[in-house]
């Protein structure tokens, strides 16, 4: 965080609404996009964004280190989004969580690093997919997996920082990250099979 922003955060912590407004202006777009990635819904994203900034100002006395402002803001946003998602119980959301063996995934959490060393199986699948397919696959992930994907790839937080933001253990974050990537690969491959089946159907039709 640069000195100018740190000064703004300190002013906001002291109750300055003008500083709060500036901080809002500098981060609202990014936070809206984050909310959108988690919820996939514009109206919900708008509500989450507003609630995040309301909470930010009302609970500013809880931020002890100004340097942590951004990740603290992410923390408010993520938890607000999760609560909203939880409330929308009746929504039909396709989750692929069940297709993986939980125990094995914990053991395989360390594979993330290994997978990063090479192109890896996900890389090969991604290369073959269209943007639309990847977009749809991401939407199908459970909200907790989408969140770690977001914080890791978009916000470029470390697994340790993600653990703080999401209020989970670092091991859980690694596990979710690994699982998210595996799920993504599984969804994309499954879609490929369906697509191929469709094509074959048309050809034989």
């Amino acid at each position: 965080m640069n000195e100018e922003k740190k000064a703004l955060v300190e002013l906001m912590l002291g109750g300055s609404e003008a500083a709060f407004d500036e901080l809002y202006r500098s981060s609202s777009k990014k936070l809206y996009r984050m909310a959108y990635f988690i919820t996939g819904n514009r109206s919900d994203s708008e509500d989450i964004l507003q609630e995040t900034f309301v909470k930010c100002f009302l609970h500013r006395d809880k931020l002890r280190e100004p340097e942590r402002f951004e990740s603290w803001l992410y923390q408010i946003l993520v938890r607000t989004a999760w609560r909203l998602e939880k409330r929308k119980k009746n929504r039909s959301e396709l989750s692929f969580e069940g297709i993986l063996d939980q125990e094995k995934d914990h053991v395989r959490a360390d594979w993330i690093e290994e997978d990063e060393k090479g192109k890896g199986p996900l890389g090969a699948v991604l290369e073959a997919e269209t943007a639309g397919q990847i977009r749809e696959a991401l939407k199908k992930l459970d909200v907790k997996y989408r969140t770690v994907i977001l914080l890791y790839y978009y916000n470029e937080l470390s697994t340790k920082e993600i653990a703080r933001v999401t209020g989970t253990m670092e091991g859980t974050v690694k596990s979710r990250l690994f699982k998210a990537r595996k799920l993504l690969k599984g969804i994309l491959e499954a879609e490929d099979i369906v697509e191929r089946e469709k094509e074959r159907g048309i050809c034989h039709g």
Partner: protein
Amino acid sequence: MARTSEEQLKRFINTELDSITPDMDEELRLLEIHKKLNKRSDFMKFRKNKLAAVFTAMLVITVLGTVTAVAAGKITGFISTSDENAHSSAELRELSKTQMQASPKIPDNFSNGMSFVNGYIAQVKGVDDDNNQVITYSEAYANYGSDQKVTLTSNVHQDLVSEDSDPSGQYEVYQGITLTAREEPYLFLPEGKEPAEEDKKLEEEGKLTISYGSGQEERKLFRTVSWSENGIDYLLFTFSDKELNSLTAMAKEVIDMK
């Protein structure tokens, strides 16, 4: 080709998200946020002041829990603001005279070694469901002790804010004054954390008060001793490990003050 899949995914997500533009105008949204803040900040002010005293967001609820029906509607919330701190008990007594038009007993220290640390006068507003002001009065807060913090509050008696009789309270008459001692369990939860089913049940039964906004989950006992003397209502309270009989002994010392 190292980290290709990582980079591909990252690039994809960034490209996707950077193309998303909110529907609402940024400045209009800021106005909405300020409206919400104005609506909710009054209540927060109260919580903050109380927190400054101890953990006293809870006191709001405690007082609220003992409020009876009022003539002009029902008080359903209290808002409190204060901006002047007293650094000595003498200073707080002076502030009480001017702002409360009363002279509550505020000792310098107690025989258990607890001394006055700081204090302030809070302007308390009782509001109904629609946020209409039903009552307003001043209340003195005096904090004692650094580790085992105990707070003494005093205000001119308000008929609209009278306590219900409480079967769980312990009563003792001292110098012709009835002292009421209570012990109430509190559960502090981080904002948004759902209480366990058994805690919800206890709350419904009035056996537990749940308060949100804490940094971490904590269970504490809120101990109070209250009494009225010469038209002034007093309350000694603590979230520390101080036992009720210690608080009662302190209350007696306040009563014994000339």
